[in-house]
């Protein structure tokens, strides 16, 4: 199972093979998450919404990089494409906000698949290069005066936060939070099925031993491109949600720094780990805020250090650490 870190002893599991403590933790987390709007004010809810949105984006990136072993240094671009898709469809074409999310996902999926086709035929290094280029170049495209009438050029597009449907007694922040939570939950479930199913196994096989995978008939190039497409889809949907949450899209919001933040997110959270998306999202939402108070260079410095140290300390990220602690506890308690 890709989700186990080495050196962990078998833990009591339910029939589906998931450790009991994990099921309990997930149930508690879900209940707490749903109840959040009751306990917190709108601003806090907004902050947590951003974390949830980032988690969806990180899920996408992790599918590609953690499980698939292919680095993308430009996922900020897909986040941006998703965000702009939503903004343009709502602002320019009057689409209902909820319909734009699948559109954002679809556009990014196609873009990701097409982009992945050439670059994924070779060493992952070339994909990293190509996605790096994408991440740096796209803000320029967003700024381009030629398509200003769609994208709003340098000034971007402002949006309104959607109201809760059916007259539910929720504020726009609370509604968007629950919507994001729902999307995230659906995303997790789908991702989990992908990872545990034959597609997931194929992707991991390609990551660990591409020649062997090819020799058993796996069409590595196709799988890699499809993985890229799905990964871009997730990030694009997250981008769309973030456009609604932040109520604004502009070219500078989706720079190379965003792409790097996403990479840091999956490294901190744990590569090849779905739960890692949450830990990573918390990290990349709050660290820049806190560090930014110290100095403008501090967030970058923290990110740099985290990446540099990641292969030595905590190679499995926070989620690996959590698993290790959780599996060690029952033994401790028995003593």
């Amino acid at each position, binding site marked *: 199972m890709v989700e186990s870190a080495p050196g962990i002893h078998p833990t009591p599991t339910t029939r589906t093979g998931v450790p009991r403590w994990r099921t309990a933790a997930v149930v508690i987390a879900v209940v707490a998450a749903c109840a959040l709007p009751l306990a917190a004010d709108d601003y806090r809810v907004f902050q947590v919404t951003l974390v949830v949105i980032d988690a969806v984006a990180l899920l996408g990136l992790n599918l590609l990089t953690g499980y698939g072993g292919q680095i993308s240094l430009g996922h900020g671009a897909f986040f941006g494409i998703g965000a702009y898709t939503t903004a343009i469809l709502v602002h320019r074409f009057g689409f209902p906000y909820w319909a734009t999310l699948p559109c954002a996902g679809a556009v990014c999926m196609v873009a990701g698949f097409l982009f992945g086709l050439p670059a994924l035929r070779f060493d992952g290094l070339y994909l990293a290069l190509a996605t790096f280029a994408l991440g740096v170049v796209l803000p320029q495209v967003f700024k*381009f005066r030629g398509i200003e009438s769609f994208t709003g050029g340098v000034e971007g597009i402002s949006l309104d936060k959607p109201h809760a449907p059916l007259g539910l007694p929720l504020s726009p922040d609370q509604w968007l939070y629950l919507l994001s939570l729902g999307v995230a939950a659906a995303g997790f479930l789908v991702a989990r099925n992908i990872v545990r199913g034959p597609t997931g196994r194929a992707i991991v096989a390609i990551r660990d031993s591409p020649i062997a995978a090819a020799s058993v008939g796996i069409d590595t190039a196709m799988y890699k491109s499809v993985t890229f497409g799905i990964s871009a889809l997730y990030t694009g949907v997250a981008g769309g949600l973030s456009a609604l949450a932040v109520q604004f899209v502009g070219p500078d919001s989706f720079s190379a720094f965003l792409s790097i933040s996403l990479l840091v997110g999956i490294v901190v959270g744990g590569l090849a780990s779905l739960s890692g998306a949450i830990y990573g999202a918390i990290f990349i939402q709050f660290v820049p805020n806190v560090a930014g108070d110290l100095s403008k260079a501090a967030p970058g410095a923290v990110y740099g250090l985290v990446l540099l140290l990641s*292969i030595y300390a905590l190679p499995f990220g926070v989620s690996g650490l959590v698993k290790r602690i959780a599996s060690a506890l029952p033994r401790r308690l028995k003593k």
Partner: protein
Amino acid sequence: MEEFLHQVVSGLANGGVYASVALALVMIYRATHLVNFAQGEMALCSTYLASALIEAGVPYWLAFSATVGISFAAGMLIERVIIRPAARAPVLSVVIVFIGLMVALNSLASWVFGTTIRTFPSPFPARPPFGNHYIGSHELGVVGVTLGMMLLLYTFFRHTSLGLAMRAVAQNQASSRLVGIRVGRMLALGWGLAAAVGAVAGMMVAPVVFLDPSMMGGVLLYAFAAALLGGIDSPGGAVVGGFVVGVLENVVGAYLIGTELKLTVALALIVGVLVLRPAGLFGSVAATRV
């Protein structure tokens, strides 16, 4: 016509900078099969160092030489301390380390020197040579410095035993050990050279685009495109690629898609080369890792 010529000429000058950074990338790729994503930020730090020295009153060429020397040493240090321990890790982890290095160096520069734009002096006179209208002194100087540097490197690699040893290590580490070459030292030397070349590139481009933390971002991208175009393992290709990319950037930007979108030329080249001819113009075929 004059306008076109000027675009070409300034494209060649930029191209010299791209060629230098691309050459540094190729040197490291040949030795380690890795792309040094941090190459641009290394050059950035070097340029800031030079700027600090110059502002402290050190004469230009002394500051230049000192910067090149210190960058050389720093490059060797980075190889030893950061890159070598990660050498056995999977490719994914190593790329993460490179990105970490890139971000860390950029933040270091921002933290130490601040983010306000600085000017950087050019060692070449302000008036164009012989009063001509096509090429400025700095542009001519950049091309000259670039070509001079290439010549030095070529002589070093072809005609010295140390250069021969480095070429050997880039091709076949096991056999290199068998003839007594200390492979680790050669890798460190390679990084030192790459850092030195990058420093020169940074100091050549800073007078034109001004010095701030984002200075090398675009340059690095063009250098990637140049290296891929020339062939990621071909030093000659990197040089040719650099000049081609420089001219292409200017010409396409001026006459086809507008200067705002110039950087998309780099992206298009990168994707285009990967799709159409992954080995580039002069490289050997880009093979998958076994």
